[in-house]
């Protein structure tokens, strides 16, 4: 009679692998995990992103009898920022809030995957889901307003950094704030701020001075500067400052998220 060896029943503790090969394998599994768990949402999210982006680009012209080119240019080069930020900054924390309410949050934390892998996979999802809406919004804007756009290669680092910043800020928010209701509230407030109280869709000079100064400390103003510079082929010292400020936000948010996720509870 075959006896059952107890040793075969135990799972080896070294399941969390190290080294680039393991990292890559885990990264692919987590990516598949995210895509599979979002499969119903992803299409809806994409549609909402495209509709809201195009809606903003077209809707702004109704505010004016004859829309000035500069106003159209500001909106058209600001909407991509919102498109890229939306999933990582707004939808991400809401997803975490839902997971916290539903209990799957604890489960996800028990997976034998390192935190950096999870973060990298989620950043990829956020980046990929923002780009189609950004492209469609820009094409519609170009068709509607015939804008003087000159797209430079700097759009690549700009989009990468903005997406990473949005994802990391959302990550920090979702994981550091315990109460799901509070997360929902903060994300709704953030939507309001990004659309209206940060100079993303309109020039800085059109808001009160103190609000413009306050916005220097937040990343949204700088994200708009980065995108606008890449889409209209302008440059200057403000652009490099923008990259630095947004970079600092990435590091700070990642640090907060890492600290929260690394704690034992």
């Amino acid at each position, binding site marked *: 009679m075959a006896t059952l060896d107890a040793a075969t029943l135990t799972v080896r503790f070294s399941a969390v692998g190290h080294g680039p090969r393991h990292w890559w394998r885990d990264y692919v599994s987590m990516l598949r995990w995210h895509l599979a768990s979002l499969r119903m949402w992803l299409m809806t999210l994409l549609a909402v992103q495209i509709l*809201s982006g195009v*809606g*903003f680009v077209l*809707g*702004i012209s*109704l*505010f*004016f*009898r004859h829309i*000035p080119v*500069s*106003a159209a240019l500001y909106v058209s080069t600001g909407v991509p920022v919102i498109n890229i930020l939306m999933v990582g900054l707004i939808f991400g924390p809401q997803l975490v809030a839902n997971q916290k309410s539903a209990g799957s949050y604890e489960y996800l934390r028990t997976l034998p995957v390192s935190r950096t892998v999870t973060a990298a996979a989620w950043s990829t999802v956020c980046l990929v889901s923002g780009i189609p809406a950004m492209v469609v919004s820009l094409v519609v804007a170009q068709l509607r307003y015939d804008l003087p756009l000159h797209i430079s290669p700097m759009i690549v680092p700009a989009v990468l950094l903005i997406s990473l910043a949005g994802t990391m800020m959302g990550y920090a928010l979702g994981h550091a704030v315990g109460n799901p209701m509070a997360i929902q509230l903060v994300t709704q407030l953030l939507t*309001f701020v990004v*659309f*209206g*109280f940060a*100079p993303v*869709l*309109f*020039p800085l000079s*059109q*808001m009160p001075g103190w609000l413009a100064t306050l916005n220097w400390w937040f990343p949204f103003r700088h994200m708009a500067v980065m995108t606008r510079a890449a889409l209209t082929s302008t440059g200057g010292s403000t652009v490099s400052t923008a990259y630095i400020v947004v970079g600092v936000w990435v590091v700070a948010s990642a640090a907060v998220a890492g600290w929260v996720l690394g704690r034992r509870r």
Partner: protein
Amino acid sequence: MIAVVEPRNRLVRPRDVLRSGLSYWLSSLAAMLRFDWCRMRQWAGMMVAFQTMMGAGMVLIYGFFYPSITATRALYIATGAPTLALIPLGFVMVPSGVIMEKLEGTFDYIWSMPAPRSAQAVSTFALYTVLALPGAVLALLVAVWRYGVHLSISPVLLPAVLLCAFMSITVGNGMALAIKNPMVTNVVVNALVFVVLLFSPIAYPASQLPGWFAAVHRVLPFESMATVMRAGLTSGLATQVGTSFLVVGAWAVAGCAATAWVVGRRR
């Protein structure tokens, strides 16, 4: 001597008071008002804050979008504030409330109460209409302070604001009741907010819209809401006020009808 209790008196009998008639309806309404107010009390502050934030916030944001703000433009934006505060209450908070009630079972519980359903509906409408007013006023005050406009308030304002609040609440309620699936209601609500905030001539004149789109807005309630409110706040800025009152009134009737249709059916 021991009193003999007649067995007949120990039976629980149905109450022989008539559960109909005006006095029963009125006492039901009073009871439902107390019940609804007790439920709503904890949210009332948040509702006013949310409305003020939406109304005043949107008015400030609209201002940022313009390179220069002329006196007429400022007047349009400022007088759009109360409308922008009323719409989120009626078209977002009321349907969300109904969705929550459906999910939590409160909805069925209320229907099981021995109060006429018409009294239940009237109580909801009345309470929300009263609760809608502080937020609208606060939003208007913020707008007036920000843009420094001079308003000339006329007596038309009172019926205008009451009708607008009532209309948005009845339509929001009727919509949430008529659509069975809460997910669909949620999508409709979000789409509505987007359309209203971006594509409705509330903070700017309808003459800026393309012809076909302006025609659509003559049927939808949003432009008419803004017009009747503007008629109460300014003199000479709003035109076709009578028609606008009719449009808002018609939507209020439609909202009531939708509510009555759902509430009146047996399940």
